[in-house]
């Protein structure tokens, strides 16, 4: 029997996941004497087939097979309006199934071994231990490009106030955000039971301090919480893939999903020729903007905009302008520019 790979013996003895031996999940050839022989029929990512985990975790896998983390449907939904019917078929075949779907998280991607992001995996989370949750790893593996470092302040800036208070991902997000609720969704926007600031901050407009009370009352339903409380620049695709030094890292504009709420926007990486290499064009590229509303994860009680009305109403700091729009972007981008006005002075 080949003994080239060893899991900690204590773990093998105590964790019921190993009761059926390595081959219970990874298959392979138990009788093989060499690495090559032992690896015949090896399944590298057993949980890609949810039935592997369903043996014991039937309830979770039954909802997870419809969850956005597994289906990656949000990625398709976010771009599909740019395609004609024919182009969408090409996209599904050449891009979605080949590329986007490769990002889907199997059970093991969060609980055992980091998913490969851009072809790179940083390996086992903790020596093949099955980790229930360890947000700094289980979530940050995939969401470590933007959201997680924004939250912890590791891009510079400031850490999110919730991080400062000791909260991690699962203190706001629920299990159903990860494992699904049994319904099939096209996009996370369709999920009703998502984290909302007012779940906890449910006394807005009742604050003792007059300026706070007035600000919350005046801006409620017009500006999202992020609009005022996102504390610093956040990462947009061009912060790494630089085309210019002059682009802002903090963008305020109209939410493209409702066309009326002022919120933080983030540039998305789809440009006119994104899929050209695969021979897929986007006839309706201008149907969608290059900016989506983003829940910036760097919330602070105090920001430049909470300290002074002038930051927005006079200085217009961070507001999307025609000059700041990305070059050769979608014609839909201009609709996101919010005409911020000075506060009218009344007698």
């Amino acid at each position: 029997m080949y003994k080239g790979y060893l899991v900690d013996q204590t773990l093998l003895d105590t964790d019921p996941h190993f009761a059926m031996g390595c081959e219970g999940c990874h298959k392979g050839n138990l009788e093989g004497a060499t690495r090559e022989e032992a690896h015949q029929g090896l399944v590298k990512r057993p949980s890609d087939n949810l039935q592997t985990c369903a043996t014991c975790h039937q309830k979770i896998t039954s909802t997870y097979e419809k969850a956005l983390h597994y289906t990656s449907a949000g990625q398709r939904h976010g771009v599909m309006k740019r395609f004609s019917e024919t182009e969408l078929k090409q996209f599904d075949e050449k891009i979605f199934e080949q590329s986007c779907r490769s990002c889907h998280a199997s059970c093991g991607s969060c609980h055992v071994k980091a998913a490969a992001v851009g072809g790179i995996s940083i390996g086992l989370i903790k020596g093949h231990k099955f980790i229930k949750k360890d947000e700094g790893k289980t979530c940050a593996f995939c969401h470590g490009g933007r959201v997680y470092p924004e939250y912890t302040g590791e891009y510079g800036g400031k850490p999110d106030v919730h991080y400062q208070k000791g909260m991690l991902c699962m203190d706001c997000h629920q299990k159903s955000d990860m494992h699904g609720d049994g319904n099939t969704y096209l996009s996370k926007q369709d999920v009703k039971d998502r984290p909302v600031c007012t779940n906890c901050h449910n006394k807005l407009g009742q604050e003792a301090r007059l300026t706070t009370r007035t600000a919350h009352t005046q801006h409620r339903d017009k500006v999202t919480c992020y609009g005022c409380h996102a504390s610093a620049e956040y990462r947009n695709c061009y912060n790494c893939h630089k085309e210019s030094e002059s682009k802002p890292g903090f963008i305020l504009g109209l939410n493209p999903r409702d066309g009326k709420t002022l919120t933080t926007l983030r540039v998305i990486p789809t440009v006119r020729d994104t899929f050209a290499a695969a021979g897929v064009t986007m006839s309706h590229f201008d149907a969608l903007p290059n900016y989506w509303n983003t829940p910036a994860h760097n919330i602070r009680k105090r920001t430049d905009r909470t300290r002074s009305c002038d930051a927005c109403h006079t200085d217009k700091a961070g507001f999307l302008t025609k000059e700041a729009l990305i070059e050769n972007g979608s014609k839909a981008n201009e609709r996101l520019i919010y005409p911020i006005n000075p506060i009218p002075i009344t007698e």
Partner: protein
Amino acid sequence: MKKRKLLILFAMLLCLLPLSAMASTLPPIISTEETAAALSNQDLIILDIRKIEEYKAGHIPGAISMFYGNLAIKRGDSDNELTPDDELVDLLGSAGIKPESTIIVYGKTDTPADRVNITRVAWTLKYAGVAKVSVMNGGFEKWSIREKRAVSADMAKPKAVSYKGKFNKAIFVNKDYVKNSLNKTLIVDVREPDFFEGKQKLPMVAKMGRIAGAVNLPSIQVFEKYPPGDHMETCCWTFKDTETLKNMATGVVGVETNREIIVYCDTGRVASTWWFILAEVLGYKNVKLYDGSMQEWTKDDSAPMLP
């Protein structure tokens, strides 16, 4: 007989002294042993400046999380800047810190950045007007890995207070202050000699060189591996003993403890080591930290530099 009675009375009075009076005697660089002995002191606040994930995995029992990133932020292109005063007041208040609190700060000592983060937080607390601040020598690794002392995974929930400390703004200086201090004040560059001599620079610093007239007192030599000696064990890093630090300091800044000294580095973080040693350990009374440091100085063509 009368003398004996007086002695007994004195001993009784000592016993009645509030614990806070004992806490005021904590040394600026406090050992893990002394920290453990002080744990029962109700007036002591221990701050863990590591990441929340690390804190939640285990920390000194009772320690409050005060992640470093809350206290040193990026502002524009400048790294490790002081957080705005109003946010600093919020942060200290939410941790239950009062100006008269006795604080022990600890973190990790794995990397040079980890080591200097601890003194940077201590400097920030002093800036905010907290009088009694100590840093724990050897960090959490010495406490937990080497010495296997008690750790807790329970999140400490301090009772918030309204922080009303008087900010000690004199220990912070800006670029204009430094410009006006040239040839008058002792300016101390704590970077490594190659950086001081203009042979190397970090990417975020625009130009090689030093502030004109500065002397060099590298912070890299402040720490030593623990336990000392020629071996493969890597536990942690500790400050060198006070006598060694004193010899290093006096050779460069002299023995006059009343003179004004400004320390700087590349971003204002590393300089906090020598600020802390000079001001808190060795008793230099007028030490200031140039927070903008070379990251700011080198962007100003009118700011004098050498070589």
